């Protein structure tokens, strides 16, 4: 009841403020009048009475202030007043306000942007029904496995999936899926879209509704693909079909197989893989139809599926995992591939299935980008810390300029708490405006960051947006920075006795050692933190440079990769080599082409083949590690990539089926398997899953080259003749070194391929671009940490400039006296720079210690560089010193140019 009255009274006070104030004035005036007439009645003169009454009453303003303080609405009102006052002050100090808001917006914005990305990649749950009930089913701690791995998530084979589906008990619904690319172009150049193989339970388990048509059902799995059709994602439907409602029943070509479109999924559903959105999903059972001879479904050694399930009510992930573990022996016995040799089989039968929570989806990007993103978030946090220190410094400087105002207000009766509240309101205002700008900035920055993670062949999709987590993060940062930079200056500004402030003339009272000491500490910590950031930036930049400058053992530039797929010709095995030879012959005939060859594996594409090697013609291997990387190449491969021969010869047209198996090896192969022997006298065999090959004769040895990735160590590589491959592929990856302009080369190749066979599909990629794409993460780290490093150094320079300027101002008299006594400009500059030197030295030492302690976390991301690299530290310290010297030279020169007369007269 009284609460309500209080509320009403307060609201009345707020809404009819003028009237309430007016009544208060009148009441106090009445009181005074009454007191005066009372005193006059007792015999005082009018003046005496008035004086006595006024003394009794105290200041009318302070009484009013006390009355206002009783009611709650006054808190809001003073806050509002403080904010208005703060805003006015900021308007009068535009340069200060701009500097403060900009540095806060940059600092908070960088943090928010990176946090947004982390949120999208790591923290957010899938936009499906009750995501917390989802779990991923996979083999626990699978160290090695044999077979063909064709998907980013090669958790299971089809045979294993069938067993799991029929035997699991912990999940009410379950599905298998595998990401892939579908070529939707009917002919000619390949047009790939992001595809999914899905089992019938996919949409139902996830609780996804159709936007149009119908989605798959678990029962579809049993009908041998009778109702097979393609399901489109909502965004693909909008993009490719303009959202037309008559798409249902229309044909979509996937690898030249027309499939009817049966449904469109709900708008916000992008799949279960974070970072990639699907375009087209088709049932698992269509895989043999679409892939033909390469079908993984038919093969028991094809690992291409991942599985997820929705837990039954009352089941936990742990309980479901335990049940899966219990049924594992039976499942793996039933799914054991016949091709396995005893060692493979033994390994396979020891696998145990498990389950892990999958509510936030699945992503291989996490492994690649989670650590870098956390590290970047830490770096951005340091930048924000430096920006806060800078702001604290600026506010301290302002506090000393305003100490008269503060002293005056305290003398007039303002309480210290009241003044602090006002100063903190100003800081909060700055923080809030900075955070608002940062939110705008962050949105764009995180979008740019997200796009910079995409490559031409692997476009990524991030659902970046404001959610409560990002909003909370930004707000928390704003409040935190406000406390960081606002509290200390506010405490200082209000800690002086008003009489002391007002007594002082000319020189401010803030020359106290302690206050200036705080500003110095702030600058030292800025220098230390910037050094840490600069060290980080330089480490990543030098690491990237190491990768770019690295000699991979072959040429990077001017090489085009054309992948010509002739699956549609349905050639027998013998015909495939002949046709790809024919394609190669025609490519070589194109004007401007200097060299061309085919390769099963394009170096540094991320693909690879590994096989066990047995040295000699007979017998078993000794020891375990005999794995070598393999590549099947045509003659001219080494010439095309300009890899030099150390011994022997290249393949030629005699190395065909029927002739003795020929192989070319690299240096490391010889070092590892036959150190010190003549390579050209060596033979080896290759162990396949269920048999061992005929012996290979080594006919040549080439330089070491990188194989899968630039970061990999050099390993043993075996090249065999494409013509002698037992199982030639139905495409030809042709590497072309050419001087011709790219555009004319591309059109010449397209014409050539369609002349050879109109049914071929072509995909082009630039070798150089492909290698660059492999350095995406390194480039990202180098760029962002570089940006943060420069920003940090800049902020530190501003801070240093401020402090040195302040010091010069403070010591004007002293400098004036020194100059009057004959000190030269040189010695004045030296005097000022000595101060810088001291701050810098302490900052650098602290910074080096800090950097040494933290750089370890980046060790795994660096290439050919230790996190304690001396040169990097020297460079960072040198560049920071140069910036610091510049920042303090300006005020020093100003000090040296002081007119001693003016400086002294100022006293």
């Amino acid at each position, binding site marked *: 009841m009284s609460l309500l009255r209080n509320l009403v*009274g307060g609201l009345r006070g707020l809404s009819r403020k003028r009237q309430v104030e007016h009544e208060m004035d009148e009441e106090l005036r*009445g*009181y005074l009048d*009454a007191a005066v007439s009372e005193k006059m009645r007792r015999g005082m003169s009018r003046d005496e009475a008035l004086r006595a009454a006024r003394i009794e*009453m105290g200041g009318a303003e302070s009484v009013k202030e*006390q009355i206002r*303080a*009783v009611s709650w609405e006054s808190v809001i009102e003073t806050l509002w007043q403080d904010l208005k006052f703060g805003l006015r002050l900021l308007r009068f100090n535009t340069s200060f306000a701009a500097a403060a808001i900009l540095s806060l917006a940059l600092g908070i914005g960088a943090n928010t942007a990176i946090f947004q990305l982390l949120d999208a990649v790591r923290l957010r749950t899938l936009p499906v029904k009750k995501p917390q009930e989802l779990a991923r089913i996979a083999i626990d701690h699978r160290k090695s496995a044999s077979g063909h791995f064709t998907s980013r998530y090669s958790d299971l084979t089809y045979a294993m999936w069938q067993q799991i589906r029929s035997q699991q008990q912990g999940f009410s619904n379950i599905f298998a899926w595998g990401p892939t690319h579908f070529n939707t172009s009917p002919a000619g150049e390949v047009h790939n879209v992001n595809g999914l193989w899905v089992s019938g339970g996919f949409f139902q388990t996830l609780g996804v509704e159709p936007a149009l048509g119908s989605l798959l059902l678990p029962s579809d799995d049993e009908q041998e693909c009778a109702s097979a059709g393609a399901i489109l994602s909502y965004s693909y439907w909008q993009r490719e079909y303009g959202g037309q409602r008559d798409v249902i029943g229309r044909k979509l070509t996937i690898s030249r197989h027309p499939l009817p479109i049966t449904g469109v999924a709900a708008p916000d559903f992008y799949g279960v893989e974070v970072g990639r959105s699907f375009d087209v999903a088709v049932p698992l059972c269509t895989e043999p139809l679409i892939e033909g001879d390469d079908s993984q479904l038919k093969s028991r050694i094809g690992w291409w599926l991942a599985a997820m399930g929705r837990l039954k009510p009352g089941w936990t992930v742990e309980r479901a995992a335990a049940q899966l573990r219990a049924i594992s022996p039976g499942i793996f016995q039933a799914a054991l591939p016949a091709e396995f040799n005893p060692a493979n089989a033994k390994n396979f039968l020891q696998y145990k299935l498990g389950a892990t929570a999958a509510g936030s989806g699945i992503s291989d990007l996490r492994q690649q980008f989670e650590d870098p993103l956390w590290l970047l978030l830490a770096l951005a946090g340091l930048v924000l810390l430096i920006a806060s220190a800078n702001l604290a410094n600026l506010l301290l400087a302002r506090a000393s300029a305003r100490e008269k105002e503060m002293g005056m207000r305290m003398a007039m009766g303002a309480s210290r708490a009241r003044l602090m509240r006002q100063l903190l309101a100003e800081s909060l205002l700055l923080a809030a405006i900075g955070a608002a700008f940062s939110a705008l900035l962050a949105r764009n920055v995180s979008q740019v960051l997200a796009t910079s993670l995409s490559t031409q062949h692997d476009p990524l999709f991030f659902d970046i947006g404001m959610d409560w987590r990002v909003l909370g993060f930004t707000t928390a940062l704003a409040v935190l920075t406000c406390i960081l930079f606002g509290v200390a200056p506010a405490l200082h500004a209000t800690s002086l006795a008003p009489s002391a402030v007002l007594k002082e003339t000319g020189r401010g009272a803030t020359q106290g050692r302690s206050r200036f000491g705080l500003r110095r500490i702030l600058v030292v910590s800025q220098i230390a933190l910037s050094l840490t950031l600069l060290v980080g930036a330089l480490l990543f930049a030098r690491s990237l440079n190491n990768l770019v400058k690295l000699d991979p053992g072959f040429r990077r530039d001017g090489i085009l990769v054309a992948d010509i797929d002739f699956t549609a010709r349905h050639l027998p095995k013998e015909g495939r080599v002949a046709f790809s030879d024919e394609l190669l012959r025609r490519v070589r005939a194109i004007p401007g082409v200097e060299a061309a060859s085919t390769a099963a594996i394009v170096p540094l594409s991320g693909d690879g083949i590994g096989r066990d090697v047995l040295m000699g013609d007979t017998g078993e291997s000794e020891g375990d590690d005999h794995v070598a990387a393999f590549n099947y190449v045509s003659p001219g491969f080494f010439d095309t990539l300009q890899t030099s021969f150390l011994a022997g010869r290249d393949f030629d047209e005699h190395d065909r089926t029927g002739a003795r198996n020929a192989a070319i090896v690299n240096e490391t192969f010889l070092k590892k398997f036959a150190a010190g022997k003549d390579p050209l006298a060596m033979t080896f065999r290759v162990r396949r899953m269920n048999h061992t090959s005929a012996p290979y004769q080594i006919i040549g040895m080439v330089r070491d080259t990188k194989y899968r990735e630039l970061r990999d160590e050099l390993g043993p590589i075996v090249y065999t003749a494409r013509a002698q491959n037992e199982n030639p592929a139905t495409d030809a990856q042709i590497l072309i070194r050419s001087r011709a302009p790219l555009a004319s080369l591309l059109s010449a190749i397209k014409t050539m391929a369609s002349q050879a066979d109109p049914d071929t599909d072509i995909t082009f990629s630039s070798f150089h671009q492909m290698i660059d794409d492999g350095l995406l993460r390194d480039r990202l780290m180098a760029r962002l940490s570089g940006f943060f490093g420069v920003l940090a150094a800049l902020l530190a320079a501003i801070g240093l400039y401020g402090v040195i300027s302040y010091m010069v101002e403070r010591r004007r008299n002293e400098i004036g006296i020194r100059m009057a006594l004959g000190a030269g400009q040189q010695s004045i500059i030296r005097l000022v720079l000595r101060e810088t030197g001291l701050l810098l030295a302490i900052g650098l030492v602290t910074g080096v210690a800090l950097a040494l302690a933290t750089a370890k976390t980046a060790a795994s991301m660096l290439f050919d560089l230790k996190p304690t690299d001396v040169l990097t530290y020297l460079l960072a310290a040198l560049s920071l010193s140069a910036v610091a010297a510049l920042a303090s030279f300006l005020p020093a020169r100003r000090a040296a140019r002081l007119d001693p007369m003016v400086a002294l007269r100022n006293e």
Partner: protein
Amino acid sequence: MADKPSGLVQGTLDMLILKTLELEARHGYGIAVRIEQISKGVFQVNPGSLFPAFRRLERAGWLKSEWRDTENNRRAKYYLLTAQGRKQLKGETREWARQAAAIARILEAES
């Protein structure tokens, strides 16, 4: 003891104000004078604590106020007890008497 009052506890002032209004409505100065008179000069209340107390009591619903003409034909804000205020005064008086008696007993036992 004839000088200024030493610890006038917060609740006490509120109670004294309510008491002065028990019989008739008064304006601010009237209340101050009345308290001084009744206490024979022991309690002198200054406006700095009097007016905030009015605002507080009004918000609590124990007082209401209205503008009236004074005996000298000036306008002044008069404070009146509400029914709730009357009840509050009764309760506080009883509680005060109880506590005062208890304190007196303790002090007597001590000597």
